[in-house]
């Protein structure tokens, strides 16, 4: 026969403080990990894409003189691929051809 009950009370604030403390600790761990991993990822991506970066700079350089009278460059772009390495000089040649057919004298140097 149940004649009564023992009632236990806990201070909720203490539990909330402990939970918040643990949450903060985990957040600090997470932020630290994200910062380290982001730095490593950026470094890794730079390392892996440095070849591509240099090829893109080479291609940009060639396109920058697209309408000038500079010689059409012979591009070597192993990462971007042979197709685009051929297509950019072709595009420059065709553009100069179009510029010539439109007249207006000497091709204008590109900015």
């Amino acid at each position, binding site marked *: 026969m149940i004649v009564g009950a023992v009632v236990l009370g806990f201070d909720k604030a203490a539990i909330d403080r*402990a939970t918040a403390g*643990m949450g903060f*600790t*985990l957040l600090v*761990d*997470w932020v630290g*990990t*994200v910062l380290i*991993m982001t730095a*490593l*990822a950026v470094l*890794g*991506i730079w390392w*892996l*894409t440095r*070849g*591509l970066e240099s090829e*893109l700079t080479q*291609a*940009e350089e060639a*396109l*920058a003189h*697209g*309408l000038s009278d500079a010689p059409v460059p012979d591009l070597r772009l192993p*990462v*971007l*691929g042979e*197709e*685009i390495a051929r*297509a950019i000089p*072709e*595009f*420059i040649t*065709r*553009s100069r051809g*179009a*510029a010539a*057919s*439109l*007249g*207006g004298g000497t091709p*204008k140097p*590109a*900015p």
Partner: protein
Amino acid sequence: MKDLQRRLVVLVSGMLLLAAVFVSYRAGGRFESSLTQQRVGVELEIGRSVAVVVERALAFGVPFDQLVDTGRFLEAVKIDNPGVDYIIITTLDGRLHYSTDLSRVSDVAGLRRALAAWNGLGHTARIGRYFNTATPINRKGRQLGWLHLGERANIIEQLLRDIVFDIVTVLVVAMLVAFELVRVLLAASFATPLRAINEFFTRIAGGDFRRTLARDLFGGIGRLNGRINAIVAELNARARRRQAAGAEMPVRLSFDLAGERGTVRANAIENIRWSFFLLIFAESLSLSFFPIFVAQFYDPAFGLPLPVVVGIPITVFMLVWAITMPFAGTWCDRIGYRLAFSIGAAMTTIGLFLTAYSTSLADLLLWRSITAVGYGIVYVTTQAYITVFVSAKEGTRGQAMFLTSFFTGSLSGAAIGGILVDRLGFAMTFLLSAGLSAIAALYVLRSLGDETGRTVAKKALALADFKLLLRHRHFAIVTFLSAIPAKVALAGFLYYSVPLYLKDLGYSQSITGRVMMAYGLAIILIGPMVARWADQARTRRWRFVMLGGYAAALAMAVPLFLADMKGAVIAVVGLGVAHAIGVSSQMTLINDRCGETVREVGQGTAVGIFRLVERIGTITGPVLLGAMIALSGFMGAFAVLALFTFATTTLFTLLLWQSDRETASIEIA
């Protein structure tokens, strides 16, 4: 370029995995120390409550070594506190007086030695695999002995063991979502701009200088767009000046004289893939809580039981989705895939937005129907788009990609939706779904290319389209002997029978959910790899459909030999692998064998009709399995279904083999 992309994927995956492992390890360590303190505190309290009873008996003058029934009392305490592995009462020199049953305690001899050497300096110490907490037993202020409580030291390990599947689920979902994001970033930085530049150069080779390239936002290959556009803009400006001067324009060259500034956009399937994934993800966010959401609108005045009412919106959604597909197919052929997808995603957005504000069951049915129409349009449009824009030699890979995106979106959406609804509530989760769906619509509208000359049908859906396709021998063979049986297996076995079977074996709904998840994971992991082989097989692609059929029959027969959880898991994974092998090749096979008829009715129409007809399997599967389970039990039903799949696959094989022989004879003749 592919090599670079592969290296980037490996780098990002490695980083993700490393981060997940490190954060988990640190969190485990933090919890271990925090929870251990808490557990030790609890043990001390248990120890004190037992010691008080013993001391009371001692206070009445009972000698310490003659306490009656103490072992049984300690056992009762141990049962009341499931974390406790042993309770031992020793004398001060460590001799054991009373204890619970120690037969399940590892290394009892070592434990006895450690207790004999107990110096009493600390309350708690680690002994072998246990945390031992000691409470002194006193009589009249003099200590007579110790009460030792032992609990396994690997608290975190034990807690993690209980939720290991949940952790694996979260990690898998996180990886799937991360992979999709990496894919879209790689596509936006490399594949899509490269394709657009190549398409642009092809136009230039034809003398077309009217268009420019899209402004780059990702800093990849699109970096070249600015320089290329500057050249074209200069040429167009010169052309306009020349025209204004009234001079003759050069022949065979076209320029943007009206200043329309058209943009070249590549038809890269990665763009539609990501949008499709995002839309499926958005729609699936509500999968885990949708029945509970519907139950809010239940009123006993409906005169229907709650489970039936909960099922109505789901059934209506499926029905509207199925009916929409053939119409959507014809429609997307007519207006173009970019526009059709965007309108479909916009309708889904509106449907999800309005669902958030549903006030009654009638409202909900209407909004879910709008969502289903949009969903159906997007589903068919995506598949038709992939079929049209993936080269014939990569057809199966394209279809596998479609299935992979569907299951990735569906699995991760359902898992993340369950977490979000706890934080955001029903309405906000639906609004978030609507927002994601709107992003999918806008992304496709912006990124998908010009489809001029690629869509075929410019007519409305007609009964003749159904007749034309269904009368085609190969279309009928693939649809009725492979696609429909696959859907019967999917809906009848996986969605209907497996949950009932596992419940019958005594497993909870959450465990059932995890087991069923294995089907989607098998398709995601195996599908793309098998599709590559299927594409290499070219004319023998049909053998993959055959292999998939036989594998499905075998998988569904597994529970006949292993009538437990292991058997069910093998069957579900086996069915996933079987469908990964067979289902992706079905649509490609139809295009291979019925190319002319498909072109006549339109790609989207063919996809829509195929998807509608195969729904016969989805509808009949649960009904057939339900009847069979009622008649002959689970094993009888599984045996019949396995035999049915075996028979249809054999018929499929014989008919295609015969057809190929006939074709070969005609060619020789």
